[in-house]
Each structure stands twice: as structure tokens, then as C-alpha cells.
């Protein structure tokens, strides 16, 4: 399949993915959209929402429509790094006993790290290499993880007792942090019909790993005008309170700003969004659409912001407005 065909197929495949997911996922269009953008762009996603909103189910459905190997890790305080990366175990063979590496659940294309903030920092840190380099190092030996590879983590924003907030380094490795909102009445009604009623709809495979990688490659070729790219970069720079020309709101309410990974995330996902919108170039509106999900977990509010009840979302919105 050549690039021209890939371009024309992109939007169609994207639509089909969305529609297929929608069979099992009632509402949450925005969450699904962000998840697909991140998956096609090749990034990890942190899903945040109260329990029972279908976060885990969404990831399961995604693995099904993408037809990718899926593994789920329920993070708990006693979870050890070796439990997720794998370990060398002693096996008996015809030649005698020997150590063999037993792959952990990280060796899968889609890894669901459920309630990631319940594991200790040590275990959380074991994810870093996998998330960033798509590899795992055990006993001095580095092993590549399958491609495509992405970690989809969930966390509960309400119940904080016995949890370990993710360190900034870890958060920075998530392309998006997607907030999963509570469904509306109509969506809730649909969920009830689907789950406790008689309706039976099952999402099935739409594309495979190969098509997904091709979509990713196609999206990388989408051109971005210098002004659009500059807008994204300025937005990231504007989150840094130490910058001389930082906006007033940044200096007043932010403790630190986003890393260059945020800019990479914005531009990569903006390209994907442009294609799924039927355009061959990224636009300002793409930047504006993906920026909150790219920035919200990379910024830290200071004490003044907390006491004044400022939210990260409102600050990001204000920054985008000021840069227009």
C-alpha cells in the first residue's frame, strides 16, 4: 500500500475504529477520541476518573478493535517490579537446569496499568523504561517490547489514601492525561441497556498492528505551518514561570512548566487529528484541541493557585487565549 492509499484510508479507518468502540462504549466520545489520537501517535495515556466509568473496559475494547495483545496489571502496594517486567526462573530442560526469562505482563502491545498510583514508586519506576524506550532490562539484559506498544494507566482522583502520587518523571512519559467524566443521563441509560439489559453488541477487530503502524507513519508526514508549530512551542514555553516573558497567570499560579515532551506530544497528536478531520495539515484548532490533555499532567500548581481554587484547565485555557 502506498502513501496515497494510506492517506485516503486513514480517515476511513479512524472512523471505523471510533464507530466500533462506540458499540461497547456509550458516550465518552471525547475520551475515545483522545485515546485513539494517542494510540495512533504512539503515546501512553493516563486515564483519570472515579471508579465505574468504564476506563478498564475502554482499554479492553481498544485492544479488541486493534487486535493487539493486551495485558492488565492491577497495581497494588505490594506489587514488585519483577512482577510486571518478568524475571529469570529456573527451568528444567533435557540438557539440565537453566535460567529462562519469564516475560511479565509488560510484554504485550497494550498494557493496562490499572490504578497505577496504588503501586510503590519502585514499581512505578519499573514502567519508565518500558513507556519511554519500549524495552525492559532485567538482570543486565535489555529486551525489546513488541510494537506497537503503549501503556494505558488509570487512576482514581478521589481516593488518595494508601496511594503513591506519580512522580513528574513518570507523568511526563504519558502523552495524554485524559479525564473521564461522569456520563450524562442519556449515556447512562445506554450503558444500563447494554450492560444489564438484553442488548448485546461486541466490538470486533478493525485494524491490526501493521495498519496501526502505517497510520502512525502517515500521520508523521502531515505538514505543519511554522506559525502553527510556533504557537505550540510558545504555549509550552508560556507554562514556565521562570521565563522572563512568562504570562502573569503562569508566574502567579504555576510551580513549574511542561517539558519538551509536551511540545512533541502536542505536535504529534495534532497531526493525527488533522488527518482524521480530513485535512492534510495541522491547524491551530488541532493544537487547541490536544493541548489540555498534553499539558494538564505536566504542570504543577503552586500554593496560591490551590488556595484560590484555580484549576490547571482554566490556566491552560487562559494561556491559549493569551497567545492567540
Amino acid at each position, binding site marked *: 500500500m*502506498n*502513501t*496515497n492509499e494510506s*492517506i485516503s484510508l486513514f480517515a476511513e479507518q479512524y472512523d471505523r475504529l471510533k464507530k466500533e468502540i462506540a458499540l461497547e462504549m456509550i458516550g465518552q466520545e471525547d475520551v475515545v477520541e483522545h485515546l485513539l489520537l494517542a494510540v495512533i501517535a504512539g503515546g501512553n495515556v493516563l486515564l483519570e476518573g472515579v471508579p465505574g466509568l468504564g476506563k478498564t473496559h475502554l482499554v479492553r475494547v481498544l485492544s479488541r478493535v486493534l487486535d493487539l495483545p493486551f495485558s492488565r496489571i492491577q497495581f497494588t502496594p505490594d506489587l514488585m517490579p519483577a512482577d510486571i517486567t518478568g524475571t529469570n526462573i529456573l527451568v528444567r530442560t533435557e540438557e539440565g537446569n537453566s535460567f529462562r526469562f519469564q516475560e511479565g505482563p509488560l510484554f504485550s502491545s497494550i498494557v493496562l496499568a490499572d490504578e497505577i498510583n496504588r503501586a510503590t514508586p519502585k514499581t512505578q519506576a519499573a514502567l519508565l523504561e518500558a513507556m519511554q524506550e519500549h524495552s525492559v532490562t532485567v538482570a543486565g539484559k535489555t529486551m525489546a517490547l513488541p510494537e506497537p506498544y503503549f501503556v494505558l494507566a488509570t487512576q482514581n482522583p478521589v481516593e488518595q489514601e494508601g496511594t503513591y502520587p506519580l512522580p513528574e518523571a513518570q507523568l511526563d512519559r504519558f502523552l495524554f492525561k485524559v479525564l473521564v467524566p461522569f456520563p450524562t443521563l442519556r449515556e447512562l441509560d445506554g450503558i444500563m441497556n447494554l450492560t444489564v439489559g438484553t442488548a448485546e453488541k461486541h466490538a470486533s477487530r478493525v485494524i491490526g498492528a501493521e495498519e496501526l503502524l502505517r497510520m502512525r507513519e*502517515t500521520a508523521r*508526514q*502531515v*505538514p*505543519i*505551518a*511554522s*506559525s*502553527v508549530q510556533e504557537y505550540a512551542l510558545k504555549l509550552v514555553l508560556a507554562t514556565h514561570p521562570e521565563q522572563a516573558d512568562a504570562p502573569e497567570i503562569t508566574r502567579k499560579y504555576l510551580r513549574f512548566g511542561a517539558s519538551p515532551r509536551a511540545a512533541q506530544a502536542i505536535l504529534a497528536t495534532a497531526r493525527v487529528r488533522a488527518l482524521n478531520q480530513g*485535512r*492534510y*495539515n*495541522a*491547524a*491551530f*484548532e488541532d493544537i487547541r484541541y490536544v493541548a489540555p490533555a498534553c499539558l494538564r499532567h505536566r504542570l504543577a500548581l503552586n500554593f496560591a493557585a490551590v488556595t484560590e481554587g484555580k484549576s490547571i484547565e482554566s490556566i491552560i485555557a487562559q494561556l491559549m487565549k493569551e497567545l492567540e
Partner: protein
Amino acid sequence: MTELLKALRPVRRRIRRNRALRGAAAGLAAGAAAALLLLLLARFVPVPDKTVYAALLLAAGIPAGAAAGALIPVKNREAATAADACGLRERTVTALENAGGDGPMVRAQRRDALDALRKLDVKQIRPAPVRKALLAALAACVLGTGLLLLPGGQDRKAEELKTLRTEIARAESAIEEALKEDEKGLSEAEKSELRKIRDELMQNLDRSRDETDALVALDKAEKRLEQMRSPSAGGSAEETGAAEALAQALQGAGLESQAQAALSGDENALAQALAGMSAEETQALAEAMESLNGEALAAAEAMEGAAQSGDAEQAAAQALQALSASGSGSMAASAMQQAVQGLKAALGGQGNGPSGSEGSGAGTGGSGGQGTGSGAGRGTTNEDQGGNGTSGNPSSGPVRGNDAPEYREGKYETIYDPERVDIATRDVMTNQQQLGNDSVQIEAGQGRGTLEGDVPYTSVIGEYASGEAKSAESENLTAEQREWVAEYFRLLTEQQ
């Protein structure tokens, strides 16, 4: 690339149009602001025709702004950005930036951008808001109208200044005309001198801020013309002398009638006298010519030629022309002087302001001692022209009176010296504070004088001169500077 630029042309045109509209609005605001400033300025400084100038500024702002807006070139990127702002979502800018690029995605993007651009309705590209500019212009217009309606302290002065300038312009053209007509018979030196006087006068008149300045300039020019005429007057005397010499020579030769005709300056009488000359009389004329020189000789030669040729009329004309040739320089200067005097008279008539120069003169004069007359004239300097008398002899007609010039005082020749007229309040020292370095800070109370404190210039100039000479002595001036001060006042005093 070419296709893309071609597709951008309507966008460019639209932007230029929008800029012209915005420029017109901005120009209107700027013009209104400029007009308002002019009207404000006119409250403090006399500005003739301020309404006309304000209206011109207001009106000129619109086309100037529109032209400036329309003439600024529209760059490709600007046009692309404007097109993108109409919902093309950065398609055009991206295509423009990747115009030289190749690859399936870039080509697809370019096609997409072109399609979108061709479907674009350029009417969506709206001009930048002009509301603020229009409101500013409106506010300036309202304020300006208010300023126009409210009477200002400088309005009367502005009117006077306008009249002055009109008069000056008229006089300048009159002087020009007079010079053109009369300088034909002048020598190069005389022409040069007259032109110099004229140029200086024009320059001084142009610099005039009020009537006083203009009158001073005119006085100066008049004096120089007078000086120029003096040597010419010598020429006039020479002319008279030439005629008398010719007459005496003719009388000596027994040619009484020709002598009378030469003296009278009547061409017909002279022609008649010459026509009737006999051969003996012609011989007597030739002998009489031996005692003549200059213009008289030229006239006599013309007469002799005429007597011989028989063309008496031409000879008479040539003789009279020769006699009057020496007076031509003074005629040109006189013409110019008359124009200057006319202007002075016109300006004197306007003089009802504080710096006005209204003066009046009255005199009686006799016309050749045969009649008396009375008249009134306006003087602008301390030397009135005397009265224009009307002769008592009907045959002589009105002639210029010959009374001695009577001294008159023009208002501009008064000095503002309230202390002298003693109508001023005195200084009141309200506070005195000793500061360091031997300095004293004094707060003075009400100042001296009123605007009514004018005294005649002539009554104080002597005193001023001696006072300034003393001051110059006491000041740290060089000997040359002291001499300059003394010379200045000596010259001023001499003029009185």
C-alpha cells in the same frame, strides 16, 4: 506555487480594498485630529482662514489614508493568513510554506489548499474594525465645531492678518508689474539695485507677522528708493539742465520759438517750430550745438537732422526722448515707490489694532503758487506726505501739495512703558528668602503696568540711548561691542 499565487490574487485584492477602507477611516481620524490641533492653535496664534485649512486637513485625511492603505503591498503570507482565517484552517499558509516540497502528503495538502482557496468567498475577508477611528474622528469634529463656534481672542487678529497678506500680495504684484514696465530704460546697475530693493522688500513682507512689521519693511524700502532717487534726481536736474542748455543755445541763436518748445516738452509745439526753420536758422542751430553736450547735444542733433530732412514730427519726438532719457531711472524707482506708498496707505487704513499704524496728516499746498488746497493723507511714518491739495486754478488740475512734511506719530512708533506713564501698580515683595551662595529668592507680587502704558517712541529714545550706553559701559562688553551699541542708538536718534 504559481497556481497557489494565482488563487491568492482575489484575496490580495480584497485585502488591499480593506486596507484602503481602514486607511480612509484612519486618515479621517488623523485629519480630524490635525484640524482640531489647528483650531486649538488658532486660539493662541492668529491663523487666517483657519476654517478653510481645518476643512482641507479633514478632507485630505481620507484620500491620503485610503491611498496609503491601498498602496502598501500585500505579501503572499499575509494573503494566505487572511484566507486561512476564513475557515481554511491554515491550509494556505502550510501550502505556501511547502510550495517547493515534494511527496504524496505535501502534494495532497497543496491540492487540498488549492481546492479550498478556489471555493473561498473573499467577501468573508472583512476589514479591520474602524469603529474606534470613526469615533475618534467624530469626537474631533465635534470639538472642532465647538472651537469654531466659540469666539476666540485671536479671530480678529487673524482677520487682520489675512487682510494684510492680501494687501501685501496685491502690492507685490503691483510692484512687479511696475518694475517690469519701467525698468526697460534702466542701466544694468540701476536694474540690479531696484531688484535688490524689491527682493529685500518681498522677503521682509513675507516675514511680516503683523502690520507693524510690514510697515517697517515698507518704510525701509521707501527710504532706499528715496536714496536711489536722489542720484536720479541729479539726473532729473541734469535733464532739466540739458533742456535749459538747449533752450539757451537756441535763444542765443535767435531761435526763440524752438527754445520755448524745447522747454515746454510739448511735442507738437516743437514739431511746429522745427518745421518752420529756414536754412539760416538751421545754420544757427548747428553753431549753437557747439556749446552743448550730453542729452542736449543729442536733442539738438535730432532737431538739426529734422530741419534738414523735413520730418519735423519725428525729430521733435527724438529730441524730447533724448531730453527725457536721463530721467528714466528715477521713473522706475518712482513707480515702485508709488506702489510701496500705496501699500503703506492700504495698511495704514487697517490699523486699528494695538500694533496698528494709523496716522493722519493734513496739509495745505499751493499749485505753482497759484492756488491753495487742503487735503488729508494717511501717514505711516513720522514723515507724512503732506496733503494732496486741489489747485485753485482749474486749468492746472489737482497737483501734489508742497507743504513741508508734517510730523505724525504712528501707533507702532509708541513704546510700551507703563512705568513712565505711571499708571502701573508697583512691585510688591511678598517673600524673601536667603539661600546659600549669597543668592536671594524673591517672590514678586503683582507686576507693573497695564496694556495701556504706551508712550511715544520719540520721547523716550534719547533717554533709552543714554541709558543703554551707560549700561554698555558697565557691562562686561568689549570695546567693539560698546561701540556697536552706541552706534546703534546714535543712528536711531539721528533718524528722529
